[in-house]
């Protein structure tokens, strides 16, 4: 009998602070991941938590972890050469193959950029695979902007628009305002050939999707990712259940038409 709760030890290859409270950890791990999936990360005696895989490649995965509590506080004290325990990956990711040949628009709010980062990285250079790629991202303030270095690189190849809710630094030269404003400001969308990904806090996903519907995007072309409390990732602990759906099994990525049916 294999024990599905047994994690394996993964060495930390690098730690890259993104903001004061969000660090990106690269781990040595030989697992096959789909964009949008998550792993259960733990430290013995401290705790275990679901964390999205923000990027991956042969023999490594990356996670961008926000310091919010018991486990993540301790994880943030770790350095390269140290290790984390992981199990997974779990859940259904984004249907990346469906996007080929289409216009793809990604709208990410805050840490919601993490689960879609691997999609941007895959497509920003291979624009031949997509018809076009647009990335809209909104953050609370300039100091919350994630993946700055990557964004600079992406900007030279694809349409990237970053906005902040408010500027607390006085030095921000970019856009200020909600992400919904970026969506309404998009030029005419080829609605028959566009797929949309929206990831962020629940309110952001709600208003962003409405903005896309106003633009004429059909509901079944919109993909969202849910965050729920999860204690197992295996369909056992029950915390993530909504109606007859287990977010850890059928999600966290859902088509909007399925997500709209769920009542918490």
């Amino acid at each position: 009998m294999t024990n599905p709760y047994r994690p394996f030890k993964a060495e930390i290859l690098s730690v890259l602070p993104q903001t004061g409270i969000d660090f990106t950890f690269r781990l040595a791990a030989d697992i096959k991941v789909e964009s949008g999936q998550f792993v259960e990360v733990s430290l013995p005696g401290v705790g275990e938590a679901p964390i999205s895989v923000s990027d991956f490649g042969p023999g490594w995965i990356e996670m961008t972890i926000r310091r919010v509590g018991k486990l993540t506080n301790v994880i943030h004290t770790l350095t390269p050469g140290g290790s984390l325990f992981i199990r997974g990956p779990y859940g259904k990711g984004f249907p990346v193959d469906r996007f080929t040949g289409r216009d793809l628009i990604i709208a990410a709010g805050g840490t919601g950029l993490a689960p879609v980062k691997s999609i941007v990285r895959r497509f920003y250079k291979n624009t031949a695979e997509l018809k076009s790629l647009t990335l809209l991202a909104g953050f609370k303030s300039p100091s919350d902007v994630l993946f700055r270095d990557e964004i600079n690189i992406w900007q030279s190849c694809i349409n990237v628009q970053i906005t902040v809710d408010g500027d607390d630094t006085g030095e921000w030269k970019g856009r200020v305002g909600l992400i919904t404003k970026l969506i309404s400001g998009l030029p005419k969308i080829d609605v028959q050939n566009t797929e949309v990904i929206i990831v962020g806090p629940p309110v952001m996903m709600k208003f962003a999707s409405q903005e896309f519907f106003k633009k004429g995007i059909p509901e079944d072309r919109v993909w969202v990712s849910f965050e729920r409390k999860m204690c197992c990732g295996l369909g056992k602990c029950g915390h993530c259940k909504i109606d007859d759906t287990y977010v850890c099994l059928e999600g966290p990525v859902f088509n909007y038409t399925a997500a709209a049916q769920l009542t918490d």
Partner: protein
Amino acid sequence: MGYVLDGQSFDGLLSQLSKEYLIYAPVRISGKGAYSDTDLVAYGQISSLDEIEYNEKSRFSPKELIYPITQTLFYFTEDEYKEPAVSQKSIIIFCRPCDVHAFRRLDEIFLKNGDFRDSYYEAIRRKTVFFILECAGSFENCFCVSMGTNRVEGYAALLRPGEGQVTCDVDEHFAPLFARYGKPAGMTPRFIEENSISVILPEEIDKNIFDHQMWQEYSSRCTACGRCTVSCPTCSCFTMQDIFYEDNPRCGERRRVWASCMVDGFTELAGGHGFRKDNGSRMRFKVMHKIYDFRKRFGYDMCVGCGRCDDVCPEYISFSGCVNKVSSLAGEVKKDD
């Protein structure tokens, strides 16, 4: 095959079985009841017929024997995850027909839902044998007939305790052993065919019942104590918990502990964000799971009609009453025949 055993022979049989099995049955624990000077009927290990509490419904279900309230998944030193050893012995559980049906529901979650089998549950479950205690009459709050969980087929043994003796119907595996301790006797199992409470199960539930004002009543009455889910034989949710030892912080355990969708914190996320903050929507979530969501996923209802949730609720909230309210609202109802 039917046998009758007197008390002494039955104890002899139990002692023989105990070489191979850990034997559990509902027992009376004096003074541990919900009110002072009352007894608690719960599951415990037994070695004689006298210890089995046959005339009352157990407050807690036998689920904790296979799925403990707190279960250590790993012991660790800083770098090593070690699983606790599992007892080599098989187990026999004396329980009611509804309880056997409840284990089938737990099997669905722990052994089937998703791609992985829960190895901790399976390790004990695969070694478990049920000896069914025939119900002499329906207890208070039971509605097993409506849920179709009043009968069991394919059991190892079914027992009818009577004055100083037990009449049993046993399968081929256990027949030789029962033959050694008892005398052959005619035994036709009798199952409960009527409860004083019956529920009507809604076939389809319209989404607008989710927002119906009927749930507000529970928002004001339910205190989110979680007793209903603790006593329920089909509730299976748990939370993970890591601890380290005070005297040696480099060592500790990862445990899982029963959790309840009725209690605060079940859905809480970072920043205090949570879902189903009011108790009425938690009641809705629980009831829908028991009589609707589970069926959509697995083809039959989760609730087995044991009525324990109603037995234990300090606010006298009736689960069966709530199900009937939902059904009458759902309009299109299917009468159980």
